[in-house]
């Protein structure tokens, strides 16, 4: 058996062990969906970071920077700054006023059935988008690592992830995230170290090489530190700069609407721990994205272009980091980085499936169909497991359809834009605006979701290709986010005041800002 395969299998074995351990501790819905609210600040910080630093971050961004230079680094910046939005606006009220999902917060003072139904739909959509990116990343890694074709590789990942979610629940996915976050940081650190070593540990030399990046002599040198290689007017046409602003807006506001990040704040005992976990996450995530400087830009100074092109001569944007590891550290390091990347994907996919299935089971099945009463004990957890299966199957199908060449960071960027347009407006307005009512929430969720999806379909990457695109931007955020907010606002002011909702605003405000009456940790 080859070294890569052994490393890879030992990681899988380790995570299955955790899942088995967690499965024995799952005793009821709070344990399954929220890990018994027993996770500490640093643990949750690592888990949030783990959920966040996905295939997009590691594989997608390093590829994007290697080929598009500075413009790819814009993803790194946006991914971190977005946590300020989470920290300042969303994390604490959400923890104080919710139970398992984002919709709990919305359903607090609005009519639960329509709000939960739509919130669940938008959660499933965002999660599926995000998941497709992970599946594509997993497919290419497995392809390279154990020479499986793309489609069976993706299906294999899907099956493994189902095992974690179906048996382990939130406790297992949390621990898988923590271990993976540590491994990923170690991998990124080593890779950065080797890149700097290649440049004799001289920043001057390193940045010099990046400014004259020639892919190890295999291409015309270009200055990767200069902006504009992807979004500049020369590269992308007159709409390029606006597309960059649109991407930035989607990234900075999207994280606070990502369901799989939001559910993490229910696994901690209180708002204070939620806050400290965001800070832990920001420290880890920030360090990681600063390191993309080295293994992203650095790759362009070390790797020959032929190594990072697909067979048909296109940039292989998802494989730059593992190939860089292979060049600098040999087969063993390549195996380690691949195993880490694969672990990353597996963990993120498990987290995504978990949040999607929690939302469907808790919001849609229990609260919409069964009016908030669990008709049989354990049914909610069972429905969650069935949903996990369905969501997994759908994203596997779409990932295989899209194929291995689509960039994972780009796909995730779109998921952010959808989350920022559909989820963020209603979360913010329901916490901070007394007059906000059910019609406004329904309008905001539905129109934010539809507008972002429709704009993606009409974009240069959508149904009609570059030439026939009806919408000139690849990233819809700058249009769809204001539409989401506007729809929530207009939906509210053009419908009668909901006095009941306004009366409950006092309760929500007190709960959100003091934590009085919030869900407590369960002891094991």
């Amino acid at each position, binding site marked *: 058996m080859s070294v890569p395969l052994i490393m890879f299998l030992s990681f899988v074995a380790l995570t299955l062990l955790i899942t088995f351990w967690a499965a024995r501790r799952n005793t009821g*819905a709070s344990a399954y969906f929220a890990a018994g609210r027993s996770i500490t600040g640093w643990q949750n910080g690592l888990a949030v970071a783990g959920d966040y630093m996905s295939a997009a971050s590691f594989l997608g961004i390093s590829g994007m920077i290697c080929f598009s230079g*500075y413009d790819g*680094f*814009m993803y790194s*910046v*946006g991914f*971190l*700054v977005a*946590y*300020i*939005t989470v*920290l*300042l*606006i969303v994390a*604490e009220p959400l923890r104080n006023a919710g*139970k398992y999902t984002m919709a709990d917060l919305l359903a607090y003072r609005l009519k639960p059935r329509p709000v939960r139904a739509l919130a669940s739909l938008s959660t499933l959509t965002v999660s599926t988008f995000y998941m497709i990116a992970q599946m594509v990343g997993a497919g290419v890694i497995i392809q390279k690592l154990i020479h499986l074709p793309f489609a069976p590789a993706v299906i294999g990942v899907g099956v493994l992830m189902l095992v974690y979610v179906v048996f382990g629940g939130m406790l297992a996915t949390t621990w898988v995230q923590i271990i993976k976050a540590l491994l990923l940081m170690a991998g990124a650190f080593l890779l950065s170290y080797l890149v700097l070593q290649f440049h004799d540990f001289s920043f*001057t030399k390193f*940045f*010099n090489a*990046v*400014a004259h990046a020639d892919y190890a002599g295999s291409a015309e040198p270009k*200055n990767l*530190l*200069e*902006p*504009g290689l992807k*979004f*500049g007017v020369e590269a992308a046409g007159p709409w*390029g*700069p*606006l597309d*960059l*602003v649109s*991407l*930035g*807006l989607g990234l*900075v506001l999207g994280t606070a609407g990502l369901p799989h990040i939001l559910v993490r704040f229910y696994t901690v005992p209180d708002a*204070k721990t939620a*806050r*400290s976990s*965001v*800070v832990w996450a*920001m*420290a880890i995530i*920030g360090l990681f*994205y*600063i390191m993309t400087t080295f293994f992203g830009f650095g790759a362009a100074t070390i790797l020959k272009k032929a190594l990072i092109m697909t067979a048909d001569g296109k940039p292989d944007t998802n494989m730059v980091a593992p190939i860089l590891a292979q060049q600098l550290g040999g087969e063993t390091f390549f195996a380690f980085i691949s195993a880490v990347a694969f672990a990353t994907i597996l963990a993120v996919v498990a987290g995504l499936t978990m949040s999607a299935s929690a939302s469907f089971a808790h919001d849609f099945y229990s609260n919409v169909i069964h009016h908030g009463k669990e008709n049989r004990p354990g049914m909610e957890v069972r429905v969650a497991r069935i949903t996990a299966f369905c969501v997994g199957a759908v994203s596997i199908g779409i990932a295989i359809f899209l194929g291995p060449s689509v960039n994972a960071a780009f796909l995730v960027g779109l998921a952010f834009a959808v989350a920022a347009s559909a989820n963020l407006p209603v979360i913010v307005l329901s916490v901070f605006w007394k007059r906000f009512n059910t019609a406004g929430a329904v309008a905001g969720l539905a129109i934010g979701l539809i507008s972002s999806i429709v704009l993606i379909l009409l974009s240069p990457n959508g149904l009609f290709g570059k030439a026939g695109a009806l919408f000139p931007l690849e990233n819809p955020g700058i249009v769809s986010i204001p539409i989401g907010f506007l729809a929530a606002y207009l939906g509210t002011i053009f419908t009668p005041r909901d006095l009941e909702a306004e*009366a409950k605003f*006092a*309760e929500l*405000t*007190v*709960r959100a*800002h*003091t*934590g*009085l*009456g919030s*869900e*407590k940790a369960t002891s094991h």
Partner: protein
Amino acid sequence: MSEKSPSPVDWAAIEAKPAFRQLLARKARFIIPATIFFLIYYLALPVLVGYFPDLMKKKVWGEVNLAYVFALSQFFMAWIMAFFYVRVAAKWDKAAAEVIHGH
């Protein structure tokens, strides 16, 4: 299935307490300006990079240009902002505990 407290809490009364109103005002005084500041600081990056590329291509240290320095500064801006937030939020925790004391 959530645990209901035996004596119902009078939410409106707490919400009307001067101490609670004061807490909200203190929070708003930090969060609103901080949010406006970080959004402007962050969005200035894609705007400057997208629309004023020549300015941002100016080299400030060897080959390192203004664009990269500004991008890197965003990381420190985020960390510093988080640091200040945690410091003031700890004070809010105390105030919040006083507000709900006795309920």
